[in-house]
């Protein structure tokens, strides 16, 4: 639905286009940071990113940015309110420490996607590699494909939804984030366990799938994982696990 709204906006408002083969990344990010509340510069397009770092990082306005191509490190980092769509793949640390808004990656994402994110929605339509959602603190992450090893490591809150499979050590040392995996989990990390899907989890998962625009997938197909809460306090019986 959100995408339809953006498409309509494309037609009614003039779009600001930055071609990174002609202008510098600094100019793009500076212009994005200068958008003030109530500005009508709501639609932006970035061309020829060619793996540049920190594309559209630090947005703090309800604007929409379409990036045409693959990006490098830290794309859309610290995003607040913005909608950033990468029509390609993303390098390490995409949407790192996102506060709110949404980031959509049409291709794959490299390691630590959504790391330390505090809010907002990160959708990766392809695969995410290792450490996806590491230390997440409230962000919601939906991955259309697989996630690599040590995803949701020390995840504190928020949700990680994986339509494919998870690699080794999923949710190692997890706190209160909720993980939903539709496929297989190669191995679970310390203190991460499979949990029962109660009605409130089904409802929350359905809402996340809807927000990510994913159809034809039912929440009942997923297994929930979370913390066994055995590592919260020191317990001599668990000494080997510390």
């Amino acid at each position, binding site marked *: 639905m959100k995408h339809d709204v953006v498409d309509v906006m494309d037609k009614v408002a003039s779009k600001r286009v930055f071609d990174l083969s002609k202008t510098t990344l600094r100019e793009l990010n500076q212009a994005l940071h200068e958008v003030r509340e109530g500005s009508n510069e709501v639609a932006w397009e970035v061309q020829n990113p*060619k*793996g*540049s770092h920190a594309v559209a990082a630090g947005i703090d306005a309800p604007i929409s940015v379409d990036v045409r191509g*693959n*990006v*490098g*490190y830290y794309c859309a980092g610290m995003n607040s309110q913005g909608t950033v769509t990468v029509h390609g*793949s993303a*390098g*390490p640390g995409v949407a790192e420490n996102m506060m709110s808004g949404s980031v959509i990656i049409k291709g*794959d994402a*490299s*390691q630590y996607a959504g790391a330390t994110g505090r809010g907002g929605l990160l959708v990766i339509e392809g695969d995410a*590699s*290792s450490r996806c959602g590491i230390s997440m603190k409230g962000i919601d992450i939906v991955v259309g494909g697989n996630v*690599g*090893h040590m995803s949701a490591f020390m995840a504190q809150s928020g949700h990680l939804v994986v339509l494919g499979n998870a690699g080794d050590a999923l949710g190692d040392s997890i706190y209160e984030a909720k993980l939903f995996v539709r496929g297989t989990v190669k191995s679970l990390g310390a203190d991460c366990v499979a949990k029962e899907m109660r009605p409130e989890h089904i409802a929350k998962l359905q809402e996340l799938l809807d927000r990510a625009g994913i159809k034809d997938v039912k929440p009942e197909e997923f297994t929930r994982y979370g913390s066994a809460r055995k590592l919260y306090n020191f317990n001599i019986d668990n000494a080997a696990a510390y």
Partner: protein
Amino acid sequence: MCGIVGLFLKDKSLEPQLGAMLSEMLVSLTDRGPDSAGIAIYGASGDGKGKVTVQSPFPDRDFPGLDAELSKQVGEPVKMTVRSTHAVLETGLAKLDAVREAVSELRPDARIMGMGDAIEIYKEVGLPEAVAERFGLAKMGGTHAIGHTRMATESAVTTMGAHPFSTGPDQCLVHNGSLSNHSNIRRELIQKGMKFETENDTEVAAAYVSSKMADGLNLGEALESTLDDLDGFFNFVVGTKNGFGVVRDPISCKPAVMAETDQYVAFGSEYRALANLPGIEGAKVWEPEPSTVYFWEH
């Protein structure tokens, strides 16, 4: 942090452009490693000739007349091509070891960078662009090549500490990461008769792979065994006369991206390095999996 680039051509029509393509890839990763840079480039083989690449801190003194002296000493013509601080000495394969020994005797300050049927190695301290320029990398052709931009962590910024490291005929290895058990492995390899030029951890990895291949393992098997025996962080990209291999440690902190088309296989520490390759828009682009060996051979 370091930068690695690699290009293994499948399409012969691209061979004259190999150096130009690799040069652009290398320079794109300058900010990952501005200390020093190096390349290994593989040309035609099978003509009965081999090459020894030597480096001298005093090229103006050491290289003039070296070809004539070597020819006389080994009893066979030796052709020399000087590129800045490096010289490539070409002669019949049977005389290659003799040339290497004669170089050490005739020019004690010169260092052997590598030798084999097809390999040439160039490396120096400085920005990647300056290093590529001084050796004329952009004009070189070949079948496959590996480049490295170094940000030093484990040993000094010197020519010999730059990558690639070559520890066996036509073999080379570059590394992004750091090894924690290299001293033990070095001791074991010294006991097996391997010789080391530096205190560098990567040289140990190169020698380890060479040692495994000397034991009869193929490139893929040798890389597989690094996962059991080497401790630390690593992305290795390895070249042999006709092969090109990649392996990442189980944690895989160091970045890596690969691309494959009908024309080539390419490796880059970041996508930036691959962004201007021909046909990249339609290429299969992926992040190599941890603990997984990838290799291609001609």
